[in-house]
């Protein structure tokens, strides 16, 4: 079953001049697959990922995720959809610096409000421990090291048990050892929990070991 179905996507930027960044992109991603997006710099990888993330709504064509069409949906609906189904990990760790690590992880779940705050705290703690940063839980996020921050960010992406975990070069800023840890974790999530992983990467090794590689050349999918 396809979790993500993309049909005939065209994407333009108008600054400084009109320029087509994605050209008739068609793709399907199965549930539980580990998918990498690769391509040269400027080929449109990030652009595609942000379209799939539902944050960029300015495109032609159709994006269907989990049976729902994203084209033409309202901001509030999309935000809610992300909250339920999509977890993000970015190249720069992007934690909220004034909150503790624990609080950072809890925020998406507090927003979702599926569980009580006490339960959420408990689950967030479990995730931090799973990622080996349990001891940092009550430190302010800005005080953690880069690798620690990235693991907290991953815990945050996992807290709502999303269908899809998306990352724009999630290991781009990590040393090879930390990158390997993150990679193994993603592998495990997709094979054991059935979560779909979709990451932009420059790391050939990373890409080679995924279930599927989407390779972009000048805004088109190359076979």
């Amino acid at each position, binding site marked *: 079953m396809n979790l993500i179905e993309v049909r005939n996507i065209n994407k333009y930027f108008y600054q400084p001049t009109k320029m087509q960044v994605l050209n008739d992109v068609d793709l399907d991603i199965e549930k539980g697959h580990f998918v990498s997006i690769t391509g040269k710099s400027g080929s449109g990888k990030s652009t595609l990922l942000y379209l799939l993330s539902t944050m960029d709504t300015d495109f032609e064509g159709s994006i269907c995720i989990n049976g729902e069409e994203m084209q033409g949906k309202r901001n509030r609906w999309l935000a*809610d959809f992300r909250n339920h189904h999509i977890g*993000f990990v970015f190249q720069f760790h992007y934690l*909220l610096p004034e909150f503790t690590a624990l609080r950072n992880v809890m*925020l998406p779940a507090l*927003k979702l409000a599926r569980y009580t705050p006490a339960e959420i705290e408990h689950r967030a703690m479990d995730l931090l421990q799973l990622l080996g940063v349990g001891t940092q839980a009550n430190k302010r996020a800005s005080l953690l090291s880069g690798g620690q921050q990235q693991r907290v960010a991953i815990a945050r992406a996992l807290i709502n048990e999303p269908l899809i975990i998306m990352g724009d070069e999630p290991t781009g800023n990590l040393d090879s050892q930390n990158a390997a840890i993150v990679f193994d974790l993603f592998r495990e999530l997709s094979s054991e929990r059935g979560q779909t992983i979709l990451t932009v990467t420059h790391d050939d090794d990373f890409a080679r070991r995924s279930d599927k590689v989407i390779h972009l050349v000048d805004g088109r999918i190359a076979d």
Partner: protein
Amino acid sequence: MKLITNIKLAATIAFTHMRARLKQTLIATAGVTFGITVFIFMVSFIQGSNDFVQAVAFEQSPHLRLYNEIQTAPANIIDRTYPGNINLVSHVKPKDILLNLKDGPQVVQALQQDPRVAAVSGAVSSQVFYRLGSSSINGTINGIRFEQENALFNLQAKLVEGSFKELATLPNSLVVGIGLARRLNVKTGDRLEVTTDKGNNFSVKVVGIFKTGLTDIDKQQSYANLHTVQRFLEVPVSYITDIKIKLHDMELAPAMLPELQAKYGFHGSDWKQDNSALLEGDALRKMIVYGVAVTILLVAGFGIFNILTMMIYEKMKDIAILKAMGFSDTDIRWIFLVQALIIGITGALMGLVFGFLAAYGISKMPYKSDVMITLDHLPVSFSAVYYVTGFTFGMLTTTLAGYLPSRKAARVDPITILRG
């Protein structure tokens, strides 16, 4: 329900932001506090003085006055006799009418029966010259029945020396205003001369001195017994020129005036007309207070606007991450609006407290005034209305100041920030 949890969550984020920027937050709050404090303080003080001045003036001003006026006859007698003809009469002189109110004493009696009326006084007033030695001062003499006039104006309280009682018993006796007494250099027991406009001279004795606090009255008016003045003017005892009325409810005056005028055919005026300059000044001063308060609050509002706008620039990344996590534009807007509201509410409440304290403090300041004799402290008005207005004002400006930046925050495009 969902809305409330969303706002609660936004509020906790807002609190964390504010705690991280405690100093700026406190400064913005202090701005609002200052604005509201000044507003409360000024409005209490100005309103207090207004009320006081008005009380003094209104005590001297009857709610309704009935009198006659010299008028040129609108049509001359030839016109009335030969209405069809063209009649030329040049330079018509005003008719020599008596200024008295027809059947005055009966009207006074009738008015005393009116249930709306609290007190009535019929009096004669006339222009006279007060003379002593070489000084000769133009002024007004009021012929009154002391009991009636006292019921209206509380004359007894304004007596500085002597007594009003002797007016009735001692012929040709006079109670003079303090300014007049000073100008003539007389005191109780002294004699002076009064010249009427017909040229008759009378020697009178000063039996008392009064002070109303209104210089205009104090420096040129005097009181004498009604019959004394009637004798001076060579008029019968039924002659009165003024009927002054005090009502139970002064707000009825403007409505009652036309009724009485129609019934008795006199001229008249009510306290609002008599004190229109005062009431106008009152409104103007209030406008100034509101103007100053609005200006200060605008400045405070700019403070809030600035700190939030700065905060939003600093927090672009946070906003983008929150949006990626699934916070909607509305949630983001709430985060910043809540900050403005917290600053607004705390600032406004503290402003109310400080404003009250300042107003209370100044109301305890001793103050001696030459004009306002009954005053020993600065007059301050305490009314809940100012506090409600001040709070509403503060909330309005801060909400507005917070709304614009928070809308901007809600519009932040997360992608431009997240792609790095």
